[in-house]
């Protein structure tokens, strides 16, 4: 309940209505000590502006890059981040958890 995504979803709607391409990334599963719980979300527009978070800042960069592709293609995709990833040291979670993030286009 401390988690207030109010502004994030409002921004998603406002940006979409203003004609921007918009994607929404949502944490759908977590294992181990993940920094944000399931349901946490990040909204991204086609200018690369984003609001919210899906981790403690460790993987947002990678999510934004993927979101750009999703805005282009319109096809949702599932991303997974964690220490088991070969990219762990680049965009993994330093806390040792694993998260799955669903990225979808808005509109």
């Amino acid at each position: 309940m401390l988690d207030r995504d109010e502004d994030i979803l409002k921004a998603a709607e406002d940006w979409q209505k203003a004609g921007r391409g918009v994607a929404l990334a949502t944490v759908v599963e977590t294992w181990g000590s993940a920094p944000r719980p399931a349901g946490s979300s990040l909204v991204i527009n086609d200018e690369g502006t984003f609001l919210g978070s899906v981790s403690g800042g460790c993987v947002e960069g990678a999510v934004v890059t993927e979101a750009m592709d999703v805005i282009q293609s319109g096809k949702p995709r599932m991303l997974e981040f964690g220490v088991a990833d070969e990219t762990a040291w680049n965009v993994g979670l330093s806390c040792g958890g694993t998260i799955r993030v669903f990225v979808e286009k808005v509109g």
Partner: protein
Amino acid sequence: MKLAILHELNAERAARRPVILVTDTESGEQRLVKAEDFSKDPLRAELDKQLRMGKSASVEAGGKKLFLNVYAPTAKLVIVGAVHISQALAPLARSLGYDVTVVDPRTAFASPERFPDVPLVAEWPDTALPPLNVDAYTAFVAVTHDPKIDDPALLHAFERNCFYIGALGSRKTHAKRGDRLRAQGAKESDIARIHAPIGLAIGAVSPSEIAVSIMAEITAVLRLPPKEKEEAA
């Protein structure tokens, strides 16, 4: 997410009505389920559970991987009575994620010195309460010990269907309160909703300990399934 769904989701959230967004994470298909429609939904058991916990989760149903994203309004706590217990209760409730407001017409009690950083309304309940939008996601406690303040506040809480209503006072005090409220038109079922003596029986002595027992009781009412809730009470 379709714009129509996003628009509806934002409207429901603005109105402080709980909803769950169900997403098939393979196909991307989505639907929004309002709390009033849970009982007709094939996923009702899962929806009920996740809403009660206030937690989003992935589930498997009918061979599909579904993500249930729970949008529950932020719970509020309205404390009527800017007394010593409230000074401990307000920060404790805030740390548990509640939006807290303290109401007391007695300005000597409702002073910013006594309640730093807590929204205070130094008005009588009839004036103070309507703008607070007390609702089903509000826990309501009346702790002034003064019937002139507590009674009208409790009548307001009945009307707004608060998920928790508690009032300070012994069983004897509470019996008298019941008589007064009945005389003012309260239903028996409303009076039965009041948790009094307030708080879980943990032998609390100090104001801070009483605050813990109150928040423990509120948490139990919010989170426990109906059957276990009865056993805890």
